[in-house]
């Protein structure tokens, strides 16, 4: 057999195997970006998928007991109860008022989080239109 054809076959095989692995994994690890109002309107089958919701952590709502952390996520008017009991540490930026992106699934009216990413709305660089309300002398650039 011609060398080039052999190479072509080996390469095709390797690439096809990888594509297969990647494709077959996508279904189970995909999470859908939804807002809290969107989640509320979902049907039960849609709710059973992995979701990623975003919002602000309601101030004073964080309750820790044992390995469990419960809190409330707010998006405008709508609120959602979240429960997290994984062993992975929460990011330092997760605190009252921070912006959070939460991966998990709905169950019994509570969103069971598997992963929480957070950034402090007031830290790093403020987004346009946001300002830091700390003590009077502190300035945050509004770029």
């Amino acid at each position, binding site marked *: 057999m011609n*060398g*080039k054809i*052999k*190479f072509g076959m*080996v*390469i095709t095989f*390797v*690439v096809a*195997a*990888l594509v297969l*692995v*990647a494709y077959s*994994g*996508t279904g189970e*690890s*995909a*999470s*859908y*970006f939804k807002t809290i109002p969107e989640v509320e309107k979902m049907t039960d089958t849609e709710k059973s998928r992995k979701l*990623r919701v*975003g919002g602000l952590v309601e101030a004073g709502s*964080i*309750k*820790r*007991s*044992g*390995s469990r952390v419960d809190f409330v996520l707010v998006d405008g008017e709508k609120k959602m109860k979240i429960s997290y009991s994984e*062993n*992975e*540490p*929460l*990011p*330092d*930026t997760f*605190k009252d008022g921070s912006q959070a*992106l939460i*991966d998990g699934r709905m169950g019994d009216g509570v969103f069971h989080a598997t*992963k929480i*990413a*957070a*950034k*402090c709305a007031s*830290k*790093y*660089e403020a*987004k346009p239109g946001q300002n*830091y309300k*700390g003590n*009077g*002398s*502190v*300035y*945050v*650039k509004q*770029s």
Partner: protein
Amino acid sequence: MENIGALAIMLAFCLAIYSVVASLAGAWKKKPFLIASGERAVVAVWALIMLATGILLYALVTSDFRYAYVAAHSNRDMPWYYKLSSWWGGQEGSLLLWNFVLIWYGFVVVLQNKKRHRAMMPYVVATLMATQVFFLTLNVFPASPFEMLAQGRNIIEVQDGNGLNPLLQYWTMLIHPPILYLGYVGFVVPFAFALGSLITRQPGDQWIFTTRRWAIVTWIFQSTGVLLGAGWAYAVLGWGGYWGWDPVENVSFLPWLTSTAFLHSVMMQEKKGMMKVWNMVLVAGTFFLCIFGTFMTRSGIVASVHAFASSNIGNYFLVFLTLGVALTIYLILGRLDYLKSESELESVVSRESSFLFNNLILLASCFAILWGTLFPVISEAVTGEKVSVDAPWFNRVNIPIGLFLLFLTGVGPLLAWRRASAEGLRRNFQWPFIGMLVLMAGLFAWGIHHVYALMTFGLCLFVTMTIAQEFYKGAAAIGTKESMNLVRGMVELTHRNTRRYGGYLVHMGIVIMFIGFAGAAFNKDSTVEAEQGKAFQLGRYDLKVTSVNSGKTDNYVWQNAVVEVRVGGELITTRQPERRIYSQSQQPVGAVSIYRQWNEDLYINFAALSSEAQKPIIQTYIFPLVSWIWVGYWVLLFGSLVCLVPSKVKLSYARTEVVGIAGKHEKVAK
């Protein structure tokens, strides 16, 4: 002063444009004085950027809060070194760092090549300076570090700044960003030489020889930068991991993959005159991925735990990337005849094909990671629904790729050029293969049933044995001939062909790292609300919280839990994981305590006090073999430095020697 800084940046911007125009016009009209003035403009731009940087640093150290940048990223009570590192704590400053590093590279290239590469140099300078113009545009227009706060008239003077993000107040963060930048910005040099040789249709592979060293140096910086980032994530970010497949991590890893591919495939061009187009694509690809990485971290296009600015400079990057890629493609397509391969692939089992597979695999990994990172953007464009893939997906795809790569690391360097014989295969691989099987069987019997971990350990031994065999054979031959002992023989052997044996050492470093990665299969963790004085258990450790203390420093207030760790009743260490709240930013930060050992790390995080009982919540993890990753890095660094030492014996890579007589190419291949 601030006006001088702003003016310096603006002048640098104008001169950089002049440099591009003068170099190109000089090359086109064949006017040496124009070319020379283009190069001198580089020196002037260098001086101006140094001046501007000096002014910003001075303002940072003296806490001059009239500067918006200083007020936003520094505060009075920080130690001076963190004040300095606020330079790259925000967008404007880190873009200035880009400019700073880039112009240093340009400066060095101009000084180094006063006599060499005269035909190529105008295009090299033009490429470097065009990139500089782009980054200066950002610093002059949308992101000026010299913006001042209006003061007087009802506006209160700023007493103290916001402070540097506490997560960045850690020693690795002092060096991680500059080193990563040195690595990424550095690839502009190989890229500039590649473009220069394309445009001038340089005969031969001159640019390859010039840029190989540059490529190795920048590769070292890239590897160091990525590893420092991992070390920071592990020790400071407190995810309990060193790698989380976060978009920002991913984009920093992509150019590393392509530049690694380039360092391998460039050997094919040097020795056999093959893969020329491919090498051009890899150099350009790496460069554009570096720019792309900056774009991703700066534009906020994909949500990331590293919360960077979501800013308006994304479009600038898109324009630059589009123009750059289009120009490169146009140049490569226009010069395909000049890039023609000088020999052909002959056999699937040969050195050539192992290089080919190495590249295929690295690129596949690169593509998969890029795909996964951009999946939210792609899925939104295609289905209208934003979907992301998580860390398990990345692992699922990349672990098999990694294992295959590990296998190639062992096999590739030992295969003969052109066509490997069955006899040669048996001779080279018999013992390593047997060793691998024995180890895997032994580990299986010992109770390790995790398939990927078993394969990793087996392959690691396989590769180690092939490398040891290479060193031993070579050293023994030298030893008999020159009557040296084995150790001196090895040093001599390495010195004679530093690139080859340095390369083996780099491979060894990678093997050691893989052992560390495989440890992740055996992680253990627990989270408990700890009763004071009552022990809890994880693995072989008994842990007990004896007290909770608190206190205050200039920069933050802290609270810690004192944890006694016992094994078999014997106290081995007392750890104090801590929580801090930085006074200026009110940002809480956990300071995990890591008890590092060669076989496993005990990692303790003080998460918080529980809301009702006010008892410390302690998260404990056992991370087996993590230290091996850092050890592997040092071996990798040592190996790559060896590669940079000139070989004692000047090996001739004349192509006829390799392609020619069978007996001769045997000698090279062994």
